[in-house]
């Protein structure tokens, strides 16, 4: 109790009156050693029940005191009463203090209670929220799980081989039994791998079978073709014997269809036809030791309308009018634009230049499968033969600008024999005919009619002696035969050499440089832009090395100025450009798929061919060592 009393004295700040009444014995409160009095803390230490007891007791005491005061006052005593009343009043005051104190305590308790309730409620709310979140999460996870479970992978549709079979047949590097036995996922992957592998093998097999089938089909085709080619071969043998038959007047009932047609040919074309066919046959026999060779070196055919030719032959007078609508006329419609002396004269000219409706087609095949197509015409009224030529190649030709008209029909056969340009008529009689209708020279019509080369006339057996202009010409087989072989050989050589020349032209590299010269040259350097024509057009837009070359001459111009004051800049730049082009062409990587040697053998010494992401070539020259390296 002593300790209590000592502590009781501390909160004197508030309880100035002391109040050591026995009613306050419950103030044994503050066990803690707090220096400040705290009523809130006091609440915790007091027992509410005992406070209630205290309250009741205090109220009773007050009542009792009031009653005593009442009693004393009503008794009406004076002095003694006054003292007693005063004493009672003091006591009741003390009790009031106690009541007040209890009241405060009650308020504090109430507030505390509320706070606790509130706190608890909030806690409950938080738990509730958490619960809901968790529920949501559970639901979401469940959904995900079902989604995953329901996931249909594509591989489920694939029928796999059974497990036992898989482990029995698959090679160990695919099956990997030690890994996959326990792990169904890895197992499925491995099985899918095996499936893929098997399918690949099957696909391979399928392809093989297909190619096998192709091969067999091709063989069948070849054999069929051989069989079907037998017939024309027999036929052409028949044809070769035609002139013999004709000379001997041996009418053959089984005359070939082409032979029928050939009969309607004008004499020069007929001679050509027969001789060419015979030569073709002879060559085929001599050259081809292997029997089934169907691609003849020389093939002959007849083109044009047989009916027209027949009509031409039967009534010689009418025919000329009838045939004026024929193709020969149509071809000459273009000539109308030329200034003429009159429509009549124009018609006469057309008449003069008319071709026979039939023509002979000669296909001369070279070794590299390029073909020279020759079409021979006969100009009936001029009694000369003309030829049109066309070259087709086995592979597509890229025509560079420089190759020009190497293969143009107009010039490909020019000068086959020395001086034979095919621009003048070989028949001296024609000149007189021309004078009549006002044709200066045949040259203007050559494009339409074909070229009247001298060798063409000879092939057709037409011989025009120069000294005798009026000499009537007759077709001569011996003349044609004597010229056939040499001419054919010449033709072949010509085509081959032209094609070779064409190829060489096409492969030539050509560098074009556009130069911008500032009026302030040479203090302001010129600017080059390049375009290389070689295997396609290359500019700085599609080739980084062209860009690098431009940069070498444009940006690094200071190295090219030469000795001061550097007026030689442009010349030096051009020379540098030549070196750069050499490097460019020589270091071009060679395409292995194309046969043959490199077009530009490497002569310059280079440490490396390409460098960096742009694959730039070694354009920098190292002077004393003499090799090229990268900048």
């Amino acid at each position, binding site marked *: 109790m002593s300790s209590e009393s000592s502590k009781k004295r501390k909160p004197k700040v508030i309880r100035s009156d002391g109040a050591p009444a026995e009613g306050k014995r419950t103030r044994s409160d503050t066990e803690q050693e707090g220096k400040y009095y705290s009523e809130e803390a006091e609440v915790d230490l007091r027992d509410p029940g005992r406070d209630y007891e205290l309250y009741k007791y205090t109220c009773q005491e007050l009542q009792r005191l009031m009653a005593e005061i009442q009693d004393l006052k009503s008794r009406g005593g004076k002095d003694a009463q006054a003292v007693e009343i005063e004493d009672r009043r003091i006591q009741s005051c003390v009790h009031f203090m106690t009541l007040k104190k209890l009241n405060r305590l009650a308020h504090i308790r109430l507030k505390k209670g509320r706070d606790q309730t509130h706190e608890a409620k909030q806690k409950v709310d938080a738990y509730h929220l958490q619960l809901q979140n968790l529920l949501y999460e559970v639901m979401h996870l469940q959904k995900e799980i079902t989604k995953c479970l329901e996931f249909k992978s594509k591989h489920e549709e694939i029928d796999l081989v059974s497990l036992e079979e898989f482990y029995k047949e698959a090679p160990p*590097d695919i099956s*990997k039994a030690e*890994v*996959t036995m326990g792990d169904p996922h*890895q197992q499925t992957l*491995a099985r899918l*791998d095996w499936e*893929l592998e098997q399918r690949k093998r099957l696909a391979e097999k399928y392809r093989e079978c297909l190619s096998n089938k192709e091969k067999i089909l091709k063989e069948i085709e070849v054999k069929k073709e051989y069989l079907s080619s037998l017939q024309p071969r027999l036929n052409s043998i028949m044809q070769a014997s035609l002139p013999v038959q004709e000379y001997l007047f041996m009418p053959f009932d089984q005359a070939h269809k082409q032979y029928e047609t050939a009969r309607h040919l004008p004499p020069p074309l007929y001679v050509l036809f027969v001789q060419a066919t015979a030569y073709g046959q002879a060559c085929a026999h001599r050259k081809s030791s292997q029997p089934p060779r169907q691609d003849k070196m020389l093939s002959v055919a007849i083109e044009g309308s047989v009916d027209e030719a027949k009509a031409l032959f039967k009534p010689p007078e009418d025919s000329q009018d009838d045939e004026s609508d024929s193709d020969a006329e149509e071809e000459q419609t273009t000539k109308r634009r030329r200034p003429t002396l009159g429509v009549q004269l124009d018609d006469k000219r057309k008449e003069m230049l008319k071709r026979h409706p039939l023509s002979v087609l000669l296909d001369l095949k070279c070794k590299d499968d390029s073909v020279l197509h020759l079409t021979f015409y006969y100009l009936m009224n001029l009694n000369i033969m003309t030829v049109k030529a066309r070259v087709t190649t086995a592979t597509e030709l890229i025509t560079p600008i420089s190759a020009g008209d190497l293969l143009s029909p107009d010039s490909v056969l020019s000068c086959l024999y020395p001086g034979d340009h095919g621009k003048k008529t070989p028949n001296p009689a024609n000149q007189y005919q021309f004078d009549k209708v006002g044709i200066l020279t045949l040259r203007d019509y050559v494009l339409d009619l074909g070229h009247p080369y001298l060798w063409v006339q000879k092939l057709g057996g037409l011989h025009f002696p120069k000294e005798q202009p009026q000499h009537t010409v007759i077709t001569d087989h011996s003349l044609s035969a004597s010229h056939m072989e040499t001419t054919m050989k010449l033709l072949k050589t010509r085509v081959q050499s032209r094609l070779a020349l064409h190829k060489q032209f096409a492969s030539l590299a050509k560098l074009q440089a556009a130069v911008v010269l500032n009026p*302030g040259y040479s*203090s*302001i*350097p010129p*600017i080059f832009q390049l375009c290389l024509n070689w295997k396609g057009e290359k500019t*700085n*837009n*599609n080739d*980084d090395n062209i*860009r690098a070359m*431009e*940069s070498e001459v*444009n*940006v690094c*111009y*200071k190295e090219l100025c030469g000795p001061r004051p550097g007026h030689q800049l442009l010349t030096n730049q051009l020379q540098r450009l030549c070196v750069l082009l050499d490097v460019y062409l020589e270091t071009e*990587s060679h*395409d*292995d*798929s194309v046969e043959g040697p490199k077009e530009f053998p490497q002569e310059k010494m280079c*440490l*490396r061919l*390409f*460098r*960096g*992401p*742009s*694959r730039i070539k070694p354009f920098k020259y190292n002077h004393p*060592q003499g*090799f090229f*390296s*990268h*900048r």
Partner: protein
Amino acid sequence: MERAAQQAVPLGQMEVFQALQRLHMTIFSQSVSPCGKFLAAGNNYGQIAIFSLSAALSSEAKEESKKPMVTFQAHDGPVYSMVSTDRHLLSAGDGEVKAWLWAEILKKVSVELGEGRGTQTQREPLRPPSAWGHRESYDSAIIQQAFLSMKGCKELWRRQPPYRTSLEVPEINALLLVPKENLLILAGGDCQLHAMDLETGTFMWALRGHTDYIHCLALRERSPEVLSGGEDGAVRLWGKECRIGGKTGGKGGWGEEDASHGSSSADLRTAKEVQTIEVYKHEECSRPHNGRWIGCLATDSDWMVCGGGPALTLWHLRSSTPTTVFPMRAPQKHVTFYQDLILSAGQGRCVNQWQLSGELKAQVPGSSPGLLSLSLNQQPAAPECKVLTAAGNSCRVDVFTNLGYRAFSLSF
């Protein structure tokens, strides 16, 4: 008046030379700063320019904000490759790799910016409405630029891989960071992959196998981890020798081994060529007339896409078979996976966007006749600067704010 002014000052040699250089400039490499707001670009003259993406993309961007904030001479030869760590900018090209502190570069940038703003505000009230004012500003701009490039920047360190002595120093075409090993892998002219420890700066090992120089590298998050493609037409995969099955599952390789064996270098040295894909031998994608070189490479889990001389092709690595051949005739120089698309660029003006199935989704034209590098700025620090930048055979870096069109170009 104006004419007289122009005649009075003829074009100087320096300006002509700079103009010519700009005309023939090639930008080989790009790298975004760790903060995502700046872009470094390296060109064929060995210069690195720093552009501010945030300034160029801001609403009050002016013409000058599309110019470099600072340009410095970094190398003697072209800057073929650059990467950024969280502190450094690493650049390489002519046989050496150099490191620059981003913080220092940006400090310089801010200083220049401060100066620039100062002079500008000074000039503003003084600017008379005559031609003189323009000329003055032009001259001072030139002086400032010359000053910037002269002052330059000092590199933090420089290293050269151990080359066998040769007449020509081999170039470095590709840099690759392996973050979890803190390694830098360099590859290029000497046909090897060199690995440098970024901690110590020592070269730890080299991988040999390519028979011609290496164009490109790519990192994969599973084993085998490093891919390289080169002039010899092969894509080689390097890693610990653990074939499919045993240690797949997304881990394995070097990093995994470290924990079990303690010393990392021992394991890294055991990395070797695990798989080789000779692209040019597959007739689906080979194009002999273009050569066999592999110019670009990118991987995503089991998939790889590569292109160059052979056609751009998507490969399945586990079965090493070509899956999709993309119908693009021009050789491609850069390729990358982006979301479910493949972006590629090369000869020609366009950035090509492909579906994995091989369909061309879009071709977005840029301003350069040919592209060499693409860079996707995906730094989380600067979401407002999320752009695609493309650079190549010009002095311009095209900026694509979305994949549909070119927004503008930054220019050297």
